[in-house]
């Protein structure tokens, strides 16, 4: 049985938004334990040992990220990235709306681990309900004494500030998020310096995803060995994946990493009767497609990388034989072009150029030379951008151009015959 309930435990059964319910089910116990029985370094060590990797998209080992913080520099900040906007991803939204206390506890644990006395959460602007739920939960937690001065009598002060985004996808990129949080234009920063050295307000800063921080709670509760026992060699533990597209039961499913892709699609109810699988986008809008032949591949970081794609945020979009791949490619390219901040050239100019060309294809006005040009230009703008957004344009487009060239060719304008 591949479905597990760790972070998703109790969702849909109990009102976890109520701090009483959450505490009755063991909530905030690990927080208290950490503050009263453990040193920050202990929490860090446990996290490191569990093999937890960032659940936001990049999959960077969390313990290693924390270790980049320069020793002894204060203040330092923890920022929880809840600006979930990757096409196909909706796991953080569920956690935010259904189990906000788990997020608060995770943030507080993370902040304690890196010895930060001020944590921030950046909530996507469109998550209005989630924001309201979270604010309510935060008020409850504050009232219970879990946020503020001298937590659990440890002498450790910890403040949590909530900030709402204003609707830009790019602000999910950690340095753009920090700029936005500082009140600046949401543009990614040039690296180096990295946020761990010079982040929010030029101070050492760790940016972690909602799900990453939330997993700290069960890892502390059940031990790092429990978490590391699941998954594959370098992809440990559990992950919430968001399955959407042409499946019968789209939704969030918490699974062990390494579960075969075929199993994941089965979990989501499989394809509609009589439909044939054409492509799967396995890791959000920025990932290249995998196909039928990859169905038995384990869903983990390394296997997907080996197949030329990525696990990303864990958003799986299933596409059957009703899919118009030209339109799908246009849709994604338009998204990235629209969300480009425009500060660096390949993403700004390239994205828009590709969008215009694809738009012509939609109107059956493609040129024969465009097909090769789409592949070449999308490749040329990849790997030379300031941030990963520009590099997100190519993967899906290139993979479907290669797999379904006939769909593009069919949209090439017929030659005009001149009299």
């Amino acid at each position: 049985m591949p479905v597990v309930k760790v972070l998703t435990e109790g969702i849909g059964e109990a009102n976890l938004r109520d701090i009483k319910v959450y505490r009755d089910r063991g909530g905030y116990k690990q927080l208290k334990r950490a503050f009263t029985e453990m040193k920050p370094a202990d929490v860090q060590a446990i996290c490191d040992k569990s093999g937890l990797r960032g659940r936001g998209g990049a999959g960077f080992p969390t313990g290693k990220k924390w270790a980049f913080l320069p020793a002894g520099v204060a203040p330092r900040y923890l920022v929880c990235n809840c600006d979930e906007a990757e096409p196909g991803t909706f796991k953080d939204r569920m956690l935010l709306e259904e189990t906000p206390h788990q997020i608060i506890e995770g943030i507080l644990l993370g902040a304690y681990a890196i010895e930060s006395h001020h944590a921030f959460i950046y909530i996507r602007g469109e998550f209005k309900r989630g924001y309201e739920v979270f604010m309510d939960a935060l008020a409850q937690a504050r009232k219970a004494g879990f946020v503020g001065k001298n937590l659990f009598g440890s002498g450790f002060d910890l403040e949590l500030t909530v900030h709402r985004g204003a609707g830009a996808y790019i602000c999910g990129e950690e340095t753009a998020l920090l700029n936005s949080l500082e009140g600046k234009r949401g543009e990614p920063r040039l690296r180096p310096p990295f946020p761990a050295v010079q982040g929010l307000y030029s101070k050492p800063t760790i940016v972690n995803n909602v799900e990453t921080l939330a997993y700290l709670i069960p890892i502390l509760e059940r031990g790092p060995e429990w978490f590391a026992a699941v998954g594959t060699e370098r992809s440990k533990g559990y992950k919430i994946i968001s399955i959407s597209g042409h499946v019968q039961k789209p939704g969030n499913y918490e699974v062990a990493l390494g579960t075969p892709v075929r199993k994941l699609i089965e979990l989501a109810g499989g394809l509609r009767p009589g439909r044939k699988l054409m492509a799967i986008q396995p890791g959000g809008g920025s990932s290249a497609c995998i196909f039928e032949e990859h169905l038995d591949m384990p869903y983990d970081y390394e296997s997907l990388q080996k197949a030329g794609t990525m696990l990303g945020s864990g958003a799986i979009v299933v596409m059957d034989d009703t899919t118009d791949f030209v339109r799908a490619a246009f849709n994604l390219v338009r998204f990235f072009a629209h969300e480009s901040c425009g500060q660096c050239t390949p993403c700004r100019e390239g994205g828009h150029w590709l969008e215009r060309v694809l738009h012509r294809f939609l109107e059956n006005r493609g040129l024969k030379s465009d097909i090769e040009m789409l592949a070449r230009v999308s490749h040329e703008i990849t790997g030379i951008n300031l941030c990963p957004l520009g590099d997100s344009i190519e993967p899906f487009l290139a993979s479907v151009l290669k797999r379904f060239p006939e769909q593009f060719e069919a949209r090439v304008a017929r030659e005009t015959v001149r009299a």
Partner: protein
Amino acid sequence: MIDQQLVTVTIDGTPVRVPKGTWLVEAAKQIKREIPVYCYHRKMGPAGLCRICLVEIEGMPKLQIACNTAVTDGMVVHTQSDKAADGRRAVLELYLVNHPLDCPICDKGGECDLQDYAMAYGQGYSRSVDPKVSKPKAVDLGPTIVLDEERCVVCQRCVRFDDMIVGERELVLKDRGVRNIIATANGEPYRHNFTGNVTELCPVGALTSKTYRFKSRPWDLRRTTTTCTQCPVGCQMHVDVRVGVVQRTMSLEDDDAISDGWLCDRGRYNVGFYDDPARVTQPMYKRDGGWVQIGWDDALDIWAAAIREACAVNPASVGVVGGGRLTNEEAFLLQHLFRAKGVANLDWRAGSQRQASPGRNGGTLVDLESCDAIVLIGESPAERAPVMDLRVRKAALQKGAKVIRIASAERPYPAPIPSTDVATVAEAIKKLPKDPKRIAIVWDGCDADFATSLLEKLPAGAQVLTYITGEQANARGAEAMGMLPFSEPGYGKAESGLDAAQMFAAARDGKLAVLSIFGANPAMYRADFARASFTAVSDLFMTETAQLADLVLPAKGPFEKTGTTTNMAGDVLPVNAAHSLETPADALSDLEMVVALAEKLGVELPVAEEVDAAVLRHLAKAPEDFTLGDARFGTSVILSPSKDPERRRKAHVEGIAFNVVVQTRVFGGGGTSAHDARIAELCPLPEAAFSPEDAAELGVNTGDYIDLVLDSVSDVVQAHHDNVGHDLLVEVRNGMPRGTIALIGGLPDSPASNLAGARVSVTNIRRAPEDAAEAIGAPA
């Protein structure tokens, strides 16, 4: 970032040794290997936006940007490999996808980085067949700059300049993606003092100067490098002339020591007066109350005769004022000629400044950057020496120096600069950072009280550097050349003569027979000015002073003559006549005039080589024994209010009397800006600034209009002014001392210039229309 450990990096096969941490673009420059850049700028560092500086670095799978790559030992870089060339080609193609390619009508054509790089690295054709994105053209950003959004490559150099260098943050990037545009914050006009620099920073023809649009092609310009003599900073600049007219001026990017590579808008744009029709082109002689044009020979005869006769009776009845706007050589010969005739009444101080040489504590302009604290006294360097003010801002913005202003009636610094306003020296001392290593005092050279007492009280351990931001470009040179009543060239003690104030007083009493004024306009700035029995003035225009004279001599302007000038830091800088600039045939430089006059007076002047040697010798001697506010310079010419109650006029309506502070504005005046149509729009409106408390008491808001009436004055001012100011625009200014009203000096048709020290009352308050007040941001 950079430490002194040297590392070796190999660029295209050539090894280069550079300090560790040097950016790759800079390392490449050392072997004359150009790596193309748009967003990177040496003074602002990498931005990583343009992605054109791609290079291949061995051991790295992806192309890297050379601007944000610090060299490491053993790094092997290829800038010309197929991979690097292909990366650049691809990026260039992207730049041209939406570029309008309107080179034939673009001012940048011929010196455009996009044009040049497209030629050097581009593929020569585009694969794009779709319509280009259209954006606003010829956007009027403000009085100086026009922007073509379509040409813009969004390198953000201009935005970063406004943020990192100027601190005003007026230019911003708006919208996103392919539709982003450069705009001003809140749509306000773009008008700080340094806007012109963005036209040079702009790698393409997006940002252009209104004064230069459609004026010339770069290859048709004749270029001369000279020193800007609009203020005592002495920025190095290129003067570009076509068809006999100055078309534009440009900064020198590598002028690190003086201008740091920038120009202020006054220096850049106030160059349109050379061909102004109002220019004096012939010697003018006043006969029967009217002006007649005469020849140079007659003019010199009249002038020499007046001097000869007066000297025969008593050389003490002859005076000379000027020199601060002349070259070192001119000032030297001027005092030489008159001292040879026994004249001791020599003074360059035609305005309110009393001292220009800071003495033993003088620092270089670069030194300002490494100060822990910079204390500003008197008028703001922002208005008097703008490019020097950029160093103050750099110290504050980039190096964390603390800027402290004592009793300042000036506008506050823009928000990113943490300036502290205090009322007294004691408070200033308290606000100093802990254990400062280096403190700079920047004084306007007028009222010495704060400067002297601050010097006494500064903490002992700190190195103190002093700077004087004066009114006249070569005031320091004039002092060194002996245009002072108490010192000879090289600051030697001279037979004491009258200073300017004493000369004017003598003139008022009928005791001054001949007064010769060179490049100065005391009638505009000083209430105590009086003409002598015979007054000769050399100037470019019929100034307020020239109109009172008997003889006016047509002078050459700074781009029309050759010599040297001395800046506020004591640097001796070249002044070069601009190639092919058309000069009125009968205009002479002050040097030529002095030489001709000497001939008529039978005085033998030293030959050119001797003059050059003397200038360098005398300038080299720093006045070790001077200090800020040295007593020998006398008291400030700022007038103090009359103590005689009989003289006090009854205050009019509101009954509150204010002390007048007269302030310089970069574009507020001076002879040359009044005769320059190109910058007329930059001239500020006559305004009156109050502290918020006083404004509340008076019941005035920003945007209102008021009139002034004279309340009490010294005897001198009263003689000149019945109407002291009308239709003044009110500005409520934070941080201003109470009981003070700040007026702008030097404006045409505004009598404020010589009101310093007077007391005035406010009358006839007119409310700003409500929507106007809102637009200006008046406090509710």
